[in-house]
């Protein structure tokens, strides 16, 4: 059923929701008991390894696997010849081609063959025996160079109907959003800033590499265990690739050591299944860190041109951005999200964005937290900052003057309902951080961010056990504390202690379809379904109590964890607790459960404002983060620890993106830094404590007012840090990461 989003929210006083209960997975994770993807084993399993292209772009003339197949201990070898292309579904066919290259290897690290052997040593030896005859082709890894005349072409005929005739074949699609007359708006400005910005590709940087175990039976059924953000997505994708019935493939999600969007697709799973099918044995595959960086989705790199006009009193009169995102070797960069979100924080009469999806010889991009939005915000928020400071205006007051609010027609066309941007800005302006003194070579930056959030297919089964405890089964891997949040919402609704509820992540055979854990959807959508399932169970328990008392069910209501007889003619009956009703369930009709199968749409949009202080060493170009505060509208914060963790995690990843993280390619198009020694993510010693301020503006689309929080927090940091660094170094930084060499060059060029 579709849920009416307008009637969900109900003001209430919470007893469990909003507290900081103990997380259910903490002890297992810190003691090593939690089972991640690489921890899964099966009797007789083989080790699967992948041979990857050493070239950025090469035609595969032939692959000779005979020597590898002859090696004792090798049980199966797989190439693209083992898979059948999917002619009627480009999206899934691209995923398959990314898992195993066909006629061309399209990036350094592209899989070209795989083996399954009785040990890792034998598998490695077998990979060396596979002979691939490559014809090395010219390559391109820069988004702007990819659309220059004469650039190496990755695919022919993939441009869609939105691309102008005669454009580069590397352009896949064009999009455009906005309203008004931008040129007329800019003409009213006292100053127009026109800048070009570039961002490098960054990886999601999850700690746990991809891993899976595949098993195929002779009767055509199969099982997969894997670390993923969406095991239903894995099932459906693999079933499509293997032309299997979805019900014949059961996928079980392991614990997940981070995903951030990067585990919303498949890389190993189809290969492992094919190796399992050919060998007749279970096959386990675990990526190395190098493989993760070379062959799994980083985010897009981008090139963005911005023009923004402003009057001297801080009113934005017109705004334009042209965004070019490369999505790696296949279509699908998140440029549409960037183009829709670029100016979403502002109330603008004249605004336009144009986006271009472009392919390069890089790994196929995968979603990364608010995909597409951080790069757009970097450009827009930097230009607004430059205008505000150029006029000597307070950057927060300028943003407040132009802020989107209820009734604003957004730059992507939607008129906003009640939103929280102004609240984040006012809270930031009034926070002590904004007025704290700065020292020499220090600067303060502020930036706003926006994200859409959404819902999607969701199933929850809530079971009352005979002893009066409760189990909740959900179908979304827990990457941000959802087991705790679901248990809390179930306990809140049922009126029982949190400790009486245990939530598990069920396999694909146990529940109906569930959308991936993405889009900041789980606490919103699965939470909503959990509440509805609990309400269904409460209704059934009231009915059982009414049967026991011999009164009408309408004369019974549920409160404080018990059924109460409340009607005028109900008579005197002591309340029956959940445990008492559960104990006699066999006598009153059998087990009691509540379900909710829904597609909860209507998730509320989210805004944040970030504030950061930096200090720049003018001699080395090194930047230190001195202080950082996140102000974000979370709707109702179900578990504030997790909400703060999402804020801090997004800010930290954004700081890494802004200061150090980047994919560095050599002249030959190969990745030069496929490891955490050279691809530098921020570590604890690099950062101060990230302060957080949670604003709770209820989402009317959820019974408790919950809205997604996981993605918005990575949108502002790129610009906030850039604005702070630009102030500290007294030079406008338009390219990130602002690594020491790049920043030092900018300082010396002043």
């Amino acid at each position, binding site marked *: 059923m*579709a849920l009416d*989003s*307008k009637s969900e929210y109900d003001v209430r006083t919470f007893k469990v929701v909003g507290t900081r209960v103990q997380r259910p997975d903490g002890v297992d994770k810190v003691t090593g008991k939690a089972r991640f993807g690489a921890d899964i084993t099966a009797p007789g399993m083989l080790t699967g390894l992948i041979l990857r292209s050493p070239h950025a772009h090469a035609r595969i003339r032939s692959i000779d696997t005979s020597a590898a197949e002859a090696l004792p201990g090798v049980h199966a070898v797989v190439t693209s010849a083992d898979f059948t292309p999917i002619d009627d579904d480009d999206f899934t066919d691209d995923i398959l081609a990314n898992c195993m290259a066909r006629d061309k290897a399209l990036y350094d690290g592209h899989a070209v063959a795989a083996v399954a052997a009785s040990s890792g040593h034998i598998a490695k030896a077998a990979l060396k025996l596979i002979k691939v005859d490559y014809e090395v082709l010219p390559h391109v890894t820069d988004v702007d160079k990819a659309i220059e005349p004469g650039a190496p072409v990755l695919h022919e005929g993939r441009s*869609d*109907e*939105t691309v102008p005739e005669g454009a580069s074949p590397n352009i896949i699609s*064009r*999009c*455009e*959003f*906005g*309203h008004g007359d931008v040129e007329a708006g800019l003409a009213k400005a006292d100053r127009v800033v026109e800048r070009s910005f570039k961002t490098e590709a960054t990886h*999601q940087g999850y700690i746990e590499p991809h891993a899976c175990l595949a098993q195929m039976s002779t009767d055509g059924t199969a099982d997969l265990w894997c670390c993923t953000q969406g095991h239903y997505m894995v099932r459906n994708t693999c079933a499509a690739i293997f032309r299997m019935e979805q019900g014949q493939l059961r996928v079980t999600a392991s614990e997940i050591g981070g995903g*951030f*969007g*990067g585990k*919303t697709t498949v890389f190993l799973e189809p290969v492992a299944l094919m190796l399992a099918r050919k060998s007749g044995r279970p096959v386990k595959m675990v990526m190395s860190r190098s493989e993760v960086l070379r062959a799994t989705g980083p985010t897009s790199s981008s090139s963005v041109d911005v023009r923004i006009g402003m009057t001297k009193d801080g009113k934005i009169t017109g705004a334009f951005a042209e965004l070019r995102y490369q999505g790696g070797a296949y279509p699908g960069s*998140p440029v*549409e*999200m960037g*183009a*829709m979100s670029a100016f979403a924080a502002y109330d603008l009469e004249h605004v*336009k964005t*144009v986006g271009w999806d472009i392919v390069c010889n890089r790994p196929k991009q995968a*979603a*990364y*937290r*608010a*995909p*597409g939005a951080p790069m757009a915000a970097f450009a827009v928020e930097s230009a607004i900052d430059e205008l505000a400071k150029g006029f000597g205006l307070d950057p927060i007051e300028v943003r407040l003057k132009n802020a989107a609010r209820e009734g604003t027609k957004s730059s*992507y*066309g*939607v*008129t*906003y*309902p009640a939103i929280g941007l102004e609240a984040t800005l006012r809270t930031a302006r009034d926070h002590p951080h904004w007025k704290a003194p700065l020292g020499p070579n220090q600067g303060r930056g502020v930036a706003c961010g926006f994200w*859409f*959030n*959404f*819902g*999607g*297919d969701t199933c929850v089964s809530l079971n009352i056990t005979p002893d009066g405890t409760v189990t909740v089964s959900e179908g979304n891997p827990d990457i941000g504390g959802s087991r705790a949040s679901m248990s809390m919402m179930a306990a809140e609704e049922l009126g029982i202690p949190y400790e009486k509820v245990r939530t598990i992540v069920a396999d694909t055979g146990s529940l109906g379809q569930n959308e*991936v854990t*993405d*889009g*900041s*959807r789980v606490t919103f959508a699965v939470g909503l379904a959990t509440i509805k399932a609990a309400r269904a169970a409460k209704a059934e328990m009231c009915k059982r109590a009414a049967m026991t008392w011999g009164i009408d069910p309408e004369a019974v209501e549920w409160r404080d964890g018990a059924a109460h007889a409340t009607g005028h003619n109900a008579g005197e009956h002591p309340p029956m607790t959940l445990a008492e009703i559960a104990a006699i369930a066999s006598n009153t009709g059998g087990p009691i459960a509540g379900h909710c199968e829904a*597609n909860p*749409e*209507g*998730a509320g949009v989210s805004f944040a404002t970030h504030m950061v202080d930096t200090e720049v060493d003018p001699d080395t170009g090194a930047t230190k983060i001195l202080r950082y505060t996140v102000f974000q509208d979370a709707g109702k914060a179900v578990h504030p620890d997790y909400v703060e963790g999402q804020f801090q995690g997004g800010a930290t990843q954004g700081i890494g993106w802004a200061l150090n993280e980047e994919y560095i390619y050599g002249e030959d198009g190969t990745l030069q830094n496929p490891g955490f020694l050279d691809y530098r993510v921020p570590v604890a010693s690099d950062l101060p404590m990230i302060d957080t301020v949670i604003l709770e503006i209820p989402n009317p*689309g959820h019974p408790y007012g919950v809205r997604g929080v996981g*993605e918005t927090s990575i949108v502002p940091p790129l610009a906030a840090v850039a604005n702070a660094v630009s102030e500290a170094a007294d030079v406008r930084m338009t390219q990130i990461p602002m690594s020491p060499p790049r920043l030092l060059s900018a300082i010396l060029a002043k």
Partner: protein
Amino acid sequence: MVAVTVFGSLARFTDDKTTVEIEASNLRELLEGLGEKYPGLKPQLKRGVSVAIDGRVYNDSWFQPIEPDSEVVLLARLKGG
């Protein structure tokens, strides 16, 4: 009739109009009506769109009601991480 705002890059398939009128009382009728009236939109509709109805975004719910005075905006299909 429902007034639907389509994003700029699709206007070339809607006779250069960014607002079009479709006879529809729910999301399914709206999407079918758009494809029938403006066949050039079909590739985008097949790739996927999201639709904002009175400020709230819907991806799949065919039978989400649409009132004649509803604000309806066609969006690129939302993605998340």
